[in-house]
């Protein structure tokens, strides 16, 4: 269902280089979100990017709905602005952990990868809890030497969301 079984046919060296670059991307992306840089978050995407967070039950059934669904950087910016400036929610800390980066397509300036993520949430005076366990299905492009997401699908196993999901994954 997640694809990626064809990884053995990739050029091993190219795939390894991509994996390193993608791991660096994840680190930077998560660092930006985890330290509260929500308004810098859109800069990780191309202008025509698709960003969707959806439950695995939808993904597995081919259902298109998104808990968050953005077509294009403009919509991603609108969400970032809303979270940063207008929405009412209890304060919280988030921590992302990514692992198991699996490069599934590796071109010169374009690659696809699947990675695992774990999203921890801590409410003030609350415990630290696993908010989501999921996978990134990513398409990267290299623009001016820098990786950008052309598509990021965040597919979460944690079907019952604990109240809500405020910040992006």
């Amino acid at each position: 269902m997640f694809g990626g079984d064809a990884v053995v046919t990739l050029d091993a060296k190219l795939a390894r280089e991509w994996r390193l670059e993608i791991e660096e991307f994840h680190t930077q992306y998560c660092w930006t979100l985890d330290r509260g840089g929500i308004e810098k978050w859109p800069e990780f995407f191309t202008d025509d990017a698709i960003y969707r967070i959806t439950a695995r039950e939808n993904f597995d059934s081919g259902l298109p709905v998104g808990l968050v669904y953005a077509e294009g950087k403009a919509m991603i910016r609108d969400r970032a602005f809303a979270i940063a400036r207008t929405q009412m929610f209890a304060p919280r800390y988030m921590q992302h952990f990514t692992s198991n980066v699996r490069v599934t397509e590796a071109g010169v300036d374009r690659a696809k990868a699947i990675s695992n993520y774990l999203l921890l949430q801590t409410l003030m005076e609350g415990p630290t809890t696993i908010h989501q366990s999921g996978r990134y299905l990513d398409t990267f492009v290299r623009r001016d030497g820098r990786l950008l997401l052309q598509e990021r699908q965040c597919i979460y196993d944690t079907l019952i969301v604990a109240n809500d999901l405020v910040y992006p994954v």
Partner: protein
Amino acid sequence: MYSNDTVIGPIGSSPKEAPEVQFQWPAEGLTAIPDWIYTHPQIYAREVERIFHGRTWNFVALEAEIPNPGDYKRSYVGPTPVVVVRNTDGSVHVFENRCAHRGVEFCRELRGNTKEFVCPYHQWSYDLCGNLQGIPFKRGLKKEGGMPKDFRNEDHGLRKLAVTTLHGVVFASFRDDVEPIEEYLGPEILPDFEAVFKGRKLKILGYYRNELPGNWKLYHENLKDPYHATLLHSYLVSFGLLVAGNKSAMIADKTGRHGTMASAKGDDVSTTVDAASKQEMRAFREDMKLNDPRFLEFVREFDSPWSVTMQTIWPNLIVQRELNTLGVRHIVPNGPNSMIMIWTMFGYEGDSEEMVRHRLRQGNLMGPSGFLGLEDNEAIKFVQEGVRRSPTDKGVVKLGGTTEGTATTLISESAIRAMYRYYRQEMGL
């Protein structure tokens, strides 16, 4: 975090939750709501018995989720797990998800297709109507063991519920004496229900599920409380979707249990929001401009004067028509301090690809990450914490005076009062 993860003031830690509370409604009557209706386990138990298992139609499924013979889904009536299934003759059946033998909750998949249900424990099998079909070793082995001679399969089927459907929406009841569904909804509620469902085949777009750490009635209140919508939600306010001054209504049925919060989107927010309203609404943001204005386009596809209708169908269904994003929310009460919400988002058969994408884009308004949805979830959680932890013991619902039922102004709690008139009568409070 889930409500069970609460560290400070966990459930059961407040003196207010002690069982010796006297269930005496405050002397003010319907302009006050006592906290114990949100927190007390005995009240919750009575609600399950008298409301969810009582003379009510409970939402269980959309027919579009189970289009073919043998299609089924796990669902709930109140907190009780049930299975909704389409039989080979096209009829829809609802029964308890509990094997008649030893109580196993046998149906584990969220959805699927099957010819029969087989309990995994001892492989008792049931047909698609819930009738017991087969028992392994029913006659024993080598003339030993087995069921008594007078054991009749007919007496040991799954517990079946009454079922009714209306325009593709499936309801079930533990009682068989509930009035017909059109009558149950009533003439005040039916037109807006039909605007969404009548004569159009739905296409399921997907699901959200969340635990909301608040009492289930708070969700009904929230959607019978147009006052909050004009204040809490910047999106509604700033883009003129629902502001004090827009054409709007809070409609209640004559029993007070159902409601429709309705509004018509103004074409130009700068002219529809007057200076006096802006000043009252802290959430109003002059500087809010969308980078992608497609988000708020409204394709007029409904036979209705309203661009938004949020219907509360007692006791467990919300029908959401927010511009072109459509969905039902199934409330599953989960003890006094928690509810599970199951959101089924849909469009219509024959929607163009662009229309589906428009619905998906607009879907960002609602759900557990929605611009409006998450604010409601946060507010409801805060209410539950407040009523559970503080020694103060009641809330105030005085907006609009003591009127009950339909209100023509958004600045009224009239529909909440009507709901509690009905609730008190059903609950004997």
